[in-house]
């Protein structure tokens, strides 16, 4: 590649960086109990939920932000954010996707997410969350006919309060951590999924998150409940426009799998990561956890994290039911000045539980990529088995890859295996591949894809294709 071509590619940047000109409803900046009451009022929430929020807020006030993470998180002024940013709709009620502001629809078209009937044909139901509000969920009626509930969290609060009350905060209580408490106080919207007994959900469910408004935080809350013998495949995609200020994304995802149920949760995250000097970008501080409550239940997390200025998340599984299984497959890529501190927790509680962890970290430029894994085998977890594989690939000589694997083993009849490797893409490997006709960039991609293959295989096909393209794009110009 000539110097000119290289520079052009570097300036190309983040293609989702455009923002949408749309009026947002006015809402005061800052965080206090009045703001929370107003938020709850605007959403028309019942008293029990407002009470929950206020309790969480009071608890949050007693906490200080954590400092144990490896990444450097600048001080966040929580009063300097909007905790609600609903795009003003031309029509008061959104009956169908046709009622959505065309500007918004255009945004999603640009992102390659058509909300039209075309998606219906492709067989994926979609909930679209723009800033803090769910704009619409496709396929709702069809799914409702077979007992599957897939709607926005707000709608679930209104229509299925018993279900929400039963499970909200049981997997991630507001006392869990600083950001979980914050989320419980100010969460705006997210997705709610309920799969009835014996139902193998016939289509994939997906939510697409887009943060647009300036200086806003996105605090979505997702709750997925899979009853006995049910199955669901859930996909989550995320982008945000390019802004100089950092935007905060502190979401909470709770998964509950009952007897012999299976939940597959896949994420491809490409939040704006900041410019190459580290200015701007999303702070992605997320608490995701699944309870394998039932016997032989299974929860699989697959994530491809290639964006955000700072990624801080540990999708985890609590293996409570006997014979339950937890999987975690992850590719975390950092470049320029991105930082990632991510990994998982597998807590074995029931008997004969199994967990598999496969983590692939790729770091380039001056970025820092940390894997933090906890495998906890409680005394009750007889016959527990864990396999962890944690691989790091370093590109260039300025990046960092760090691993903190922690194993707490309190039952003698358990087996835990851990493998780790660190590799660099060597000049010799690149030359070998180039000498067969591939350009340097294609050579880097080939090696990186080979490295991540095991994780891609666990993604649904469409997502796998998107993940491959995303990683390629992010690796452009990572090798000098």
């Amino acid at each position, binding site marked *: 590649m000539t110097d000119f071509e290289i520079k052009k590619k570097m300036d190309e940047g983040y293609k989702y960086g455009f923002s949408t000109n749309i009026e947002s409803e006015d809402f005061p900046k800052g965080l206090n109990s009045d703001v929370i009451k107003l938020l709850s009022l605007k959403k028309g929430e019942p008293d029990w939920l407002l009470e929950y929020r206020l309790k969480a807020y009071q608890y949050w006030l007693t906490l200080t932000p954590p400092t144990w993470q490896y990444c450097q998180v600048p001080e966040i002024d929580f009063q300097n954010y909007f905790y609600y940013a609903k795009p003003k709709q031309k029509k008061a009620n959104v009956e169908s996707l046709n009622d959505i502001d065309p500007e918004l629809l255009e945004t999603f078209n640009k992102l390659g997410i058509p909300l039209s009937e075309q998606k219906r044909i492709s067989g994926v139901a979609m909930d679209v969350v723009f800033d803090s509000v769910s704009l619409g969920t496709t396929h709702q009626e069809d799914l409702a006919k077979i007992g599957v509930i897939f709607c926005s969290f707000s709608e679930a609060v209104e229509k299925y309060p018993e279900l929400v009350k039963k499970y909200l905060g049981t997997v991630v209580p507001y006392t869990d951590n600083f950001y979980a408490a914050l989320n419980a106080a100010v969460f705006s919207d997210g997705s709610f999924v309920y799969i009835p007994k014996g139902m193998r959900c016939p289509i994939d469910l997906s939510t697409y998150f887009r943060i647009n408004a300036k200086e806003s935080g996105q605090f979505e809350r997702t709750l997925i409940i899979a009853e006995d013998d049910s199955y669901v495949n859930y996909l989550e995609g995320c982008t945000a426009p390019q802004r100089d200020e950092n935007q905060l994304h502190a979401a909470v995802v709770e998964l509950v799998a009952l007897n012999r149920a299976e939940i597959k949760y896949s994420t491809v995250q490409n939040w704006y990561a900041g410019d190459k000097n580290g200015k701007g970008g999303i702070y992605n501080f997320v608490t995701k956890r699944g309870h394998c409550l039932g016997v032989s239940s299974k929860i699989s997390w697959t994530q491809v994290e290639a964006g955000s200025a700072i990624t801080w998340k540990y999708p985890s599984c609590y293996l409570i039911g006997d014979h339950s299984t937890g999987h975690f497959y992850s590719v975390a890529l950092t470049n320029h000045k991105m930082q990632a501190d991510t990994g998982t927790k597998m807590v074995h509680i029931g008997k004969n539980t199994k967990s598999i962890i496969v983590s692939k970290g790729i770091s380039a430029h001056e970025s820092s990529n940390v894997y933090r894994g906890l495998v906890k085998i409680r005394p009750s977890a007889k016959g527990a088995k864990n396999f962890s594989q944690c691989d790091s690939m370093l590109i260039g000589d300025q990046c960092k890859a760090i691993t903190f694997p922690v194993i707490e083993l309190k039952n003698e009849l358990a087996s835990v295996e851990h493998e780790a490797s660190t590799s660099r893409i060597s000049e010799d490997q690149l030359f070998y591949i180039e000498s067969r006709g*591939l350009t340097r960039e294609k050579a880097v991609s080939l090696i990186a894809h080979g490295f991540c293959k095991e994780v891609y295989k666990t993604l649904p096909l469409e997502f796998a294709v998107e993940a491959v393209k995303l990683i390629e794009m992010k690796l452009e110009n990572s090798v000098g």
Partner: protein
Amino acid sequence: MLDISNLKVSVQGTPIINELNLTINPGETHVIMGPNGSGKSTLVKTLAGHPAYEVTDGTVNFTVHKKIMNLLEMETSERSLKGLFLSFQYPVEIPGVTNLNFLFESYKYHCESQGVTVPSENEFIDFLKPKCELLKMNVDFLNRNVNEGFSGGEKKKNEILQLLTLNPKLALLDETDSGLDVDALKVVSEGVNTFRNKSNAALIVTHYQRLLNYIKPDVIHLMVKGKIIRSGGPELALEVEEKGYGLL
């Protein structure tokens, strides 16, 4: 096909090749022999575009289908696409990437470059099978990662498989015979002979006469201290074998 004129190459400031001249015509097999450190490997790696070698003087013209190209100005990948192939002395391992994947990707890029239709993966495997058989390679090696856990002989065979797959105009073979037992040597030589025809050419770097029992050279060059000091026919190799490099 290849016209090297006054080539000078340095590595980290140290000159290795000093005013080398060499011409190779289509249909010819050239062999370079010489003592260790004479610059033989440096020559072929430089031709392939290895970044560690700095060309300080000279020109290299690479002519394919009557089009003359300035080889030294071309990127490594372009040199390959235009018809140059290097069989490495020490092929590197590429974990995570299967042989099939690697071969297919290279093949695809060559097809696209020549405007030839890209076959399906199954068609490509069928295309590879006879070549694997010729080289006495088990087809399931295609699912193994590139050169990972391969013996020396297997690595060299893999290089020749790539040669047969990509079918270049000019093949540079860097000590392809080193580390091979007699059977492997025969198989590899047969591979090279199958490749060779009137419109392509080969430049083989070797220490030993043994290879030349199976691959008939047209010209033999003796390289010492970065220069070709003598060229001749096949009988030159026998002379070297008898008298050693001291005869020079």
